[in-house]
């Protein structure tokens, strides 16, 4: 973001891009077929769901909070979609999105209104949402029947070789970028994350914008849940839970500091691609899935450490 560009931060801002480019180049050299358009499309399609989830999360992280409930919300949306498609047809999607929006808003209200720290508010709200989802689905993955599959075409289908899911993710990127760049929400989000007291003292209705950030996080999470359900043709009550760590990692690796005040959706796109390419690379190299989880934990901690401006933080809890 141009506003933040000063000589030092400029390098820090470019770092995620360099990492991504380096990873892609390395993979391109190591794996002969990697640089083909078909493979790249595959990578993009694979990244789409993770990106949408992380894009919503980045609204919350920019304001200096965290939403640990996004994956529960995504799972809820997937289950709602799968349950409603047979009876309601296409109306299942807006209902699922509304459910996500509601879950995010409630989390935000608990955090802001009751002054509960966001990690515990979202953990608890995620627990509530997860419990409801298990109850709705009877703890089973809800399969989307053959007759309802055409409804999923806008996500799961492809046109002229271009998977629709990439278009959906691009739409989410555009929406998120527009919100951050062109509306007061984006500016106030950065200001709140960088200095909440100064933003309050400037007369910005901070509580409102914080709740809005959580609401958007819920909305994007729901979209991610629908995408996941469409790809798997079933809504699983715990299907998205494995995406929590990668999605936080995507935001942080993209260059948004966990302390807030910098970054945004566009950087998260870079971060999500980095996570995705790294995972792909590890699979090519034969690193098994469990070790990948370990590596993500490590990467997450390292990225947090790198993006945090420690000089400005006196006490870390």
């Amino acid at each position: 973001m141009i506003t933040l560009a000063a000589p030092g931060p400029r390098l820090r801002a470019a770092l995620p891009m360099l990492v991504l480019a380096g990873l892609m180049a390395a993979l391109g050299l190591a794996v002969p077929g990697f640089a083909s358009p078909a493979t790249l499309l595959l990578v993009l399609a694979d990244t789409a769901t993770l990106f949408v989830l992380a894009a919503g999360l980045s609204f919350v992280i920019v304001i200096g909070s965290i939403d640990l409930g996004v994956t529960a919300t995504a799972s809820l949306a997937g289950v709602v979609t799968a349950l409603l498609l047979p009876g309601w047809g296409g109306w299942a999607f807006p209902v699922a999105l509304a459910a996500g929006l509601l879950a995010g808003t409630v989390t935000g209200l608990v955090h802001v209104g009751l002054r509960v720290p966001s990690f515990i508010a979202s953990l608890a709200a995620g627990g509530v949402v997860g419990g409801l989802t298990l109850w709705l689905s009877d703890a089973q993955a809800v399969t989307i029947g053959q007759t309802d599959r055409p409804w999923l075409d806008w996500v799961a289908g492809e046109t002229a070789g271009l998977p629709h899911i990439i278009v959906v993710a691009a739409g989410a990127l555009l929406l998120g970028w527009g919100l951050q760049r062109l509306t007061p929400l984006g500016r106030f989000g950065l200001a709140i994350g960088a200095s909440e007291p100064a933003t309050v003292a400037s007369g910005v209705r901070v509580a409102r914008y914080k709740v809005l950030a959580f609401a958007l996080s819920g909305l994007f999470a729901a979209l991610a849940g629908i995408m996941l359900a469409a790809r798997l043709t079933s809504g699983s009550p715990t299907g998205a839970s494995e995406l929590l760590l990668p999605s936080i990692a995507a935001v942080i690796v993209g260059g948004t500091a966990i302390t807030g005040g910098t970054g945004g959706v566009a950087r998260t796109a870079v971060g999500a691609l980095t996570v995705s390419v790294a995972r792909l690379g590890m699979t090519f190299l034969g690193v098994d899935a469990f070790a990948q989880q370990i590596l993500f934990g490590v990467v997450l901690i390292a990225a947090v450490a790198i993006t945090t401006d420690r000089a400005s933080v006196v006490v870390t809890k």
Partner: protein
Amino acid sequence: MTTTAGKGRASARLWTSVPWRALAPVVVLAALCIALGLAADNFATAGNFARIATSAAVPAVLATGVTLVILMGGIDLSVEGAMAVAAVVAALVLVAAPGALGAVAAAFAALAAGAALGAVSGAIHVGLRAPSFMVTLGTWFIGLGLAVWLVGGGTVSVRDSELRVLALVRLGGLPLSVWVALGTVLIAWVLQSRTRLGRALFAVGGGEDLAAQSGVPVGRVKVAAFALAGLCYGLGAVLAVAQLGQGNAEIGTGRLFAAVSAAVVGGTSLLGGHGGVLHSLVGVLVVVVLSNGMILLGVPPYLQQAVQGLLIIIAVAVSLDRRGQGLVK
């Protein structure tokens, strides 16, 4: 100083200094028990109370660990990861070395594994000045990954091992695991209230910068607290392996939630400095009695998680002092 005058004041103080607010969780527990006793015929039976005690054993040990960290104003989300590693390590040792000696070795190996993961969390948190929830979120998944990797994703059955003594042998009508849990809480209570480390936890929770200014080695205290918490998760894993007769990476699933809700429901402040392991014991009983009651009343099991989530929100919201101007992130 005349000691008699001091004693007179002390006894007069006893009444006024009763922390009524801190007793609220006990009142909630009592009210819950009475309500359930009236609503469900089979609640107030010796058998059911033993069942409650048995299912409270593991959460009590875990909540004790997480409380030590929360007292400092931090949080430890790595409960499930640490348990997974410890459980898998215990199970592997049991398979490799059967018999009583093997059981002892398995228990110690599990404790060591838990403590090591905790120490790593603490060291990263202190060394890199990264927020504890972020670091422990990382170590949570590192732990899970390690556990799955160690057993290749499967389950190690230790149905016939000597370790199961903890769950099968009863003393005074209760399994040994309950007594182990009680002992752990007691030791942690002594540690919290009577040792330098314990008091330092409160000092860090009450004012980290001021404590550092007065020469409290804040970094070392934090690492020690995370390591001790990890030790507790290791013990929780041992008890869980004994109860279930198997070790796998999923052994801790859902445990974080119960542990954190117990701590906050018991009245330990997430801001640090207030509460303690006895509070958390009461919190554990509230959580366990509630889910026991829900089972007796036929509430769908999956809604229990939702109820626990609500419980956390309510408990934190009630306990936080909202008059303060402080930021909530």
